[in-house]
């Protein structure tokens, strides 16, 4: 004689979905505020059948990020590159997507900033943070894409952005990094057209 139990399953699910949607659509999550990382310039040029990327990224840290860094927290930065072919009737198709990761950490003993290039496992240390950020920000002749992957006549868009990988932050900070504005360091996508 359990009256409402079975009959209420559907309404249960509905209420759950409604609650979820409500939470997700709360404005905080979708809005972006102040920008810290900015892509000031980026371009590609073709050389020997390979598109080379030149870009300069301005890694400006927020106070919270700076504090974390100075306290020894390693920050993992990621530069994301994507190449898309724009189509009229459907959404764009991603031809290529690349990412470069760097870990930036303060070494207390030597009082230097160590940059660990995660893609190449190269390490470089800098006495000053600005030097380190400069080294990171200058992308020079980075081989991006093979010419043969592109079709003639199609319209392509290249996008570039720099992000802070929140997932690599220590777990106690991670939650705040998701929510707090001071940790939203990601740059907007910097896009330009590419026509083979």
């Amino acid at each position, binding site marked *: 004689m359990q009256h*409402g139990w079975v009959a209420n399953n559907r309404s249960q699910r509905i209420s759950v979905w409604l*609650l*979820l949607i409500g939470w997700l659509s709360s404005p905080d999550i979708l809005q972006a505020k102040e920008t810290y990382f900015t892509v000031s310039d980026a371009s590609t040029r073709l050389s020997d059948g390979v598109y080379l990327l030149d870009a300069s990224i301005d890694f400006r840290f927020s106070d919270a990020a700076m504090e974390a860094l100075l306290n020894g*927290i390693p920050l993992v930065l990621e530069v994301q590159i994507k190449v898309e072919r724009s189509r009229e009737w459907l959404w764009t198709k991603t031809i290529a997507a690349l990412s470069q990761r760097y870990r930036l950490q303060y070494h*207390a*003993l030597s009082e230097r900033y160590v940059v660990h290039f995660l893609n190449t496992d190269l390490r470089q240390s800098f006495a000053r943070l600005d030097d380190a950020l400069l080294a990171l920000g200058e992308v020079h002749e980075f081989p991006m894409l093979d010419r043969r992957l592109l079709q003639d006549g199609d319209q392509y868009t290249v996008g570039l952005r720099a992000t802070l990988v929140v997932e690599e932050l220590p*777990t106690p900070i991670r*939650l705040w990094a998701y929510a707090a504005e001071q940790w939203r360091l990601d740059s907007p996508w910097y896009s330009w057209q590419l026509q083979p």
Partner: protein
Amino acid sequence: MLALFLLLLVSLSLMSDATHNSERFGRLYSLLLVTNALGLIVLIGMIAVNLYWLLQQYRKRAAGARLTSRLVMMFVVLAVLPVSVVYYFSLQFLQQGIDSWFNVQIEASLEDALDLSQSAFDVRLRDLLHLTEDLAKELTEVPSPLAPLSLFDLRVRSGASELTLIGANGRIIASSSVESTKIVPDRPSEGVLLQSRQGQSYVGLDPVGDELHIRAVVPVPYGGPGVETRILQALYSVPERLNVKAEKVQDAFARYKELAYLRVPLKHSYTLTLSLVLLLTLLSAVWGAFYAARRLVAPIRDLAEGTRAVADGDYSHQLPVTGHDELGFLVQSFNVMTRRLAYARDEAGRSQQQVEGQRTYLAALLANISSGVVSLATDLHVRMVNEAAAGILGLELKDAVEISLYNLAEQHHFLQPLVDLVLEHQLQQDLQWTEEVTLFGSRGRQVLSCRATTIPGDDVHPGGLVLVLDDITALIQAQRDAAWGEVARRLAHEIKNPLTPTQLSAERLRRKFLERMAPEDAEILDRSTHTIVQQVETMKEMVNAFSEYARAPQIMLEVLDLNRLVREVLDLYRGGRKHHVRTQLDPSAPYVEADAGRMRQLLHNLIKNALEAAGGNETGGANITVSTRVGNEDGQTFVELAVHDSGPGFSAEMIYKLFEPYVTTKIKGTGLGLAIVKKIVEEHGGIIQAENAPEGGAEVRIRLRMVEAPALSGPRNLAH
């Protein structure tokens, strides 16, 4: 449900592990967080649904709703309070615990350790700087093309792990490294290069790769014109032991610093995890409370509904037995009880049917028997009267029931004798008696045989009296007639026989001897034989009168005008007499159904008696009043004929025996006059009463049934 809990539990434990910043589940932290949040939302949703359902049930006043609510509230409170207390204290411990990790002294110590480590390198740094400067001096003379060899030399000599000569514009002129496979040498940073170009040396620790190195960047002294400003970079490795220790100190420091920085976020994380755990526990406790309460109350709810059904008379409801605890036992008992109730009710129904059947049978029996049955309560309240009784008593059935006997007698006066009889025996506390009672009701005179039995009462049925009435009027009459008739006939016959010879003998004697005898003897003979003959005549008359009394001819009823009859009879007495015979005849012309001849005889007898009593004879001197009256009693109309004389009245002992045969005060009376009158009256279904009138003298009253004025009906036979 259970699966959800387990999942949430697992994910929470993972999350708490991850909060600890462990590498194992660190990646999953965000995912776990979302999972847990979702799980909790689902839980909240389910609880909300349950709450809504419960509220609905409560409002509908469904069975068990209130109990469920109370149970739920109780469980919730029981769950919430201890958990909250634990939570509060855990939180306190947590915060204080974490705070206790971070000691100012520890921090100071670690900084000191780092300082010490750095100081440990100071001497070495200085030395190596000097060495590098010396090396740079040696390179002053060496031209750039020859640099590689010199560098090699110098390197081997100095024990450096790498020597790099950098030109003015920052390009590398030459390099020598202990690692032969290394192609690209380490470059100093721009800042350092700038510093060197300005003539300043630099030395410092450099964590290149995973090992500490000492980097010294010194400008090569001016070699003269044409020689560019060059910079020498030397990388020296640090001895293993020192390296390891230094790294350890560095690690410890870094870790502590990190942790110190993370202190607040860590506290928040732990608090969050703890809160999630709290929420999960609470919510699952609440949901569990709903579930448990519903499960617990289910049998009670069933019982409540079952009881309601039983109260409404539905005994067929059987409840499902769940569990072997006291509630299960209660449910079983309930089932047994309803079954028994149903059985008992069926039994009761059956026995009621039986009783009904018997009662119907009894009622049919009573309705159809010819004897009247009257059932009285102990207070003489009429409980039941059967049809025959109502018929006998001449009452409507509905008038006779549910009425006290006294009231019945009040409404129907003719029943008074019966009531008196019952009361008399009641007073005497006779349990059983049989009597005859005479009533004068609507049908005239009735003799009823009344048999009474007292029924003792018990707890269920009150006692009472049962009267069985039989109308024996006709029976008695017939019996009496038959008896008398028989006796009279025989007697008359027997007596008459000797009379005639006696008379004849006397007459013969007269004939034979009267003329031959002497005058004195003849006179005696004459007188004696005369006396004999006369007396024999008298006896003959008497016998005739008796036989007349006994053997009545067929009665012929017709509707008569009583007044006229009276007048006719009285006319016979008027002529030439000096009697005062008054008549008071009711002008409403009473008619009776009677035999004319008998009525006349009746009147004659009465008037004769009256005349004799009034102290006169046929010659006159008496005051007699004959009256007729129409009366109405108990809704019955009757005719009352009364004969009043102005004589001395009846004596006390006479008055009881007046109507018995051979009772007379007259010298010459047969004693049959009034007896005959009574017989005639009874034949007509009337009653007769004799009493001394209040104004003196005797009065005889006769009541007869009155009928309508004659239609066209002729005389009828009474006897069948």
